[in-house]
């Protein structure tokens, strides 16, 4: 299991670095539209991204203002993974969102 956000054609291509220690602060999501298939559109910049299945799940939780800890719990309930693995995945995903400037501190 690994949450992913990828920029599509015409978007920036930077890949987020992975931060493994502790839980990060989620921050505020920009106002974006996410399709059920994980196609994410930023109406301000016109940039588009694709999220994988786990990315969609985490993104939706962030939209619902869930804390990182709550998202970790949701992931461990849904998938057969440890809390550490889930935390690492959520952290990485949040860093990717911040790298793409989709999530503000």
């Amino acid at each position, binding site marked *: 299991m690994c949450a992913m956000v990828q920029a599509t*054609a*015409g978007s920036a291509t930077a890949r987020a670095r992975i931060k493994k220690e502790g839980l990060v602060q989620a921050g505020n999501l920009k106002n974006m*539209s996410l399709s059920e298939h994980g196609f994410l*559109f930023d*109406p*301000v*910049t*016109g*940039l588009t991204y694709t999220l994988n299945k786990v990315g969609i799940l985490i993104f939706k939780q962030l939209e619902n203002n869930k804390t990182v800890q709550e998202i970790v719990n949701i992931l461990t309930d849904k998938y057969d993974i440890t809390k550490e693995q889930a935390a690492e995945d959520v952290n990485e995903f949040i860093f990717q969102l911040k790298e793409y400037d989709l999530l503000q501190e």
Partner: protein
Amino acid sequence: MYNFNVAVTGLNATDNPAPGVGIARSIRKDSSWSGKIIGLAYDVLDTGIYDSDIFDEVYLVPYPTDGGGSLLHRLKQIKQKVDIDVLMPTLDSELINFHRISNELKEENIKMFMPDETLIKLRSKVDLSKFCKKNNFNSPESVLINQTSQIISAGRKLGWPLILKGIFYEAYLANSQEEACVIFEKINARWGLPIIVQKYMLGEEYDVACLGDGEGNCICAMPMRKLRITEKGKAWAGISIKDEKLLELSKKLISSLKWKGPCEFEFLKSSAGGQYCLVEINPRVPSWIYLAALAGQNIPYLTALLAYGEKIEPVNSYKVGLTFVRHAQDLICPINYIEDLTVKGELVFENYKEGFLWKI
């Protein structure tokens, strides 16, 4: 329901597409209008001429270099064949000619809604930097040059690489003095002097299609992010976006210029700092205007209505995330079309409604 005829120029939609085809499609799309769309073309092989789904009639007109006098003479000839109620010039190089004959056209009952000569010159590529400084808009630093020897000092002042631009069209990136000299000659041969040398800035390109009422009010403004850009810098794909900062800047520009008619603002969002820089003001409808029309801001149609004398309230909403992708398509036509244009300077599609006279 409105019923009037609209004449449009700028029918050549090749690698640097003129806006005429997009304008005609936009007007035709509006269900509250009926009438003829008349194409005014400069060359028999201006590509848009042959799209009989868009144009009802097409007439050849003299090139802008022939001046306003011969243009007026030709338009009077055309007016005897078909009624032109509204005329929409679309090319930078012809706007001043059209403005200079606007009073005579009014006497012929041909109406336009366009910027005057002072406005057209104020926003020219040559004077844009001056305008931006005076009105506190960010714009890339630039200098004007008239000979290749000035490239060295321009490079020293602005740093390499440089952007070289023609007074009307075309912009190229030059990485070295040698490359800049070749580009200088290329642009000079096509568009004349001076050449605008602009500081190169890395960033993302955005355009805003606007319509001003001439009293400082912005009737329409729709920003578009370029998704695909050709080597000539033309947007080949784009998406409508809702960026409040771009809308605010565009409305401020319309207000400070008291812009009359349609226009396009070109912005560059600097990679270093994310600031918006005004790169160009084009005093006419952009070629991608059909996107704005389908998004809910039918700028060509509203311009035609303003010219027709209607009062138009600002349109603030539009669909965000609507995308255009341009592609080339072959139009097949009989030799009679080319014959009519070459021999008579006109092509009336109604004459061919029974089908091609010349069987393929």
